[in-house]
């Protein structure tokens, strides 16, 4: 059995997500040149919350929000075949600012794949990255987040998972 520690509880996670939303509003209001894209599958729960809250705060504004699946762009795609989730981008990204939203940033490989997938849909003027958890010192590619919920130190044998059920929380597992 692996040992687990809760590193963010529901109330704290909600507070963090709201803070991230306010930071995004601060930098991008009134969202005319910006669109927000959640990375499938697990980033979407987070981005649904952030965009939902953003729309609550600014019901008068049109906020472009989509979902991006990166399965076909993974660098390990053929090691084991994964089934894709839906990509839904009902707006142009050409020449606009794109904020990618994901749950946990670890090696950076998912974000590398996401940028490739994104660029096949057009050429954004700028791409930013928003993550709930940034696992420090574990990057395998030169990728850096612009908005971070919580930075944590963790080692390779640990796993960090964001659960989005009745009790949303972030859990750290020791797999050794």
């Amino acid at each position: 059995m692996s040992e687990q520690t809760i590193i963010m509880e529901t109330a704290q996670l909600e507070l963090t997500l709201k803070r991230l939303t306010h930071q995004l509003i601060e930098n991008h209001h009134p969202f005319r040149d910006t669109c927000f894209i959640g990375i499938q599958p697990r980033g979407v729960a987070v981005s649904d919350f952030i965009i939902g809250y953003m729309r609550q705060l600014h019901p008068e504004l049109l906020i472009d929000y989509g979902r991006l699946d990166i399965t076909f762009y993974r660098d390990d795609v053929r090691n084991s075949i994964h089934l894709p989730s839906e990509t839904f981008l009902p707006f142009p990204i050409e020449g606009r600012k794109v904020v990618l939203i994901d749950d946990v940033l670890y090696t950076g490989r998912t974000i590398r794949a996401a940028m490739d997938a994104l660029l096949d849909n057009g050429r954004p003027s700028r791409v930013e990255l928003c993550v709930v958890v940034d696992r420090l010192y574990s990057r395998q590619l030169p990728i850096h987040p612009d908005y971070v919920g919580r930075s944590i130190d963790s080692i390779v044998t640990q796993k960090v998972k964001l659960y989005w059920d009745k009790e949303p929380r972030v859990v750290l597992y020791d797999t050794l």
Partner: protein
Amino acid sequence: MQLGTRHLLGIRDLASADIETILDTAVSFKEVLQRPIKKVPSLRDVTIVNLFYENSTRTRISFEIAEKRLSADTVNFTASGSSVSKGETLLDTVNNILSMKVDMVVMRHSATGAPHFLARHVPATIINAGDGINEHPTQALLDAFSIREKLGGLEGRRVAIIGDIMHSRVAMSNIQLLKKMGAEVMVAGPPTLIPKHLAEAFGVRVEYDLKTALQWCDVANVLRIQLERQNQVLFSTLREYSLAYGINKRLLDSLGRQIHIMHPGPINRGVELDSDVADSGHSLILEQVENGVAVRMAVLYLLSGKS
């Protein structure tokens, strides 16, 4: 591995969960095909040979586009103009091609069972693109995808397959797929072109009257008369066949309900389908062709895994 099989030899070997997986994955690939850059890098280290021992327009181009959209390297082989005419056997031809480091073989052959034979004897992944009068699995998958997209599902939907059932691998694959997915299937055509024990073997309805069949179905999948596979007289003339089994707009209008018309191509206009039907709003024919690329991408992708 996402599918229960390493090759796609026929619908016969697929579980309904496999079919569901292929159709769901094809939805994602159809979305890829709408993008400005209609290409993903998934199969960029894979080499595929398209081995066509029989004529083909749609299937060969569709597979080739699907492969290119997945970034695979492709090689095309057609029997005419090759060393086949010098007497080389199928196995020798394929082993020679495979020694040039080819990973997958998409194959069409006039002999029933040719891809099954290859699957037993060579290490590459084999995809059947039509073998004799046996199966044409990717056609059935793209037909099912088109029906699902149009009608929202397959279960309980009524599909009539009309025409030369006897010589049609499309009919064989379609019947098996539709039954596996819970659709109701009817075959219709002249008695001489419907195999005797089809009803008991596959649990399909058999109908000899065209109008009754059209009144029953949600979708009519119309097949071509395969004169090249017939070596005996099964009906008198194409004109007579057309009078009894040709579908025209007047007939469709007389049904009093809207049905969808599909055709795997090539169409013999004026024989099984009139132009005013083939080019009408009833027709899903060009959508079938479009969906074919997405479905073949899904099959190639799902079978490309290393483990």
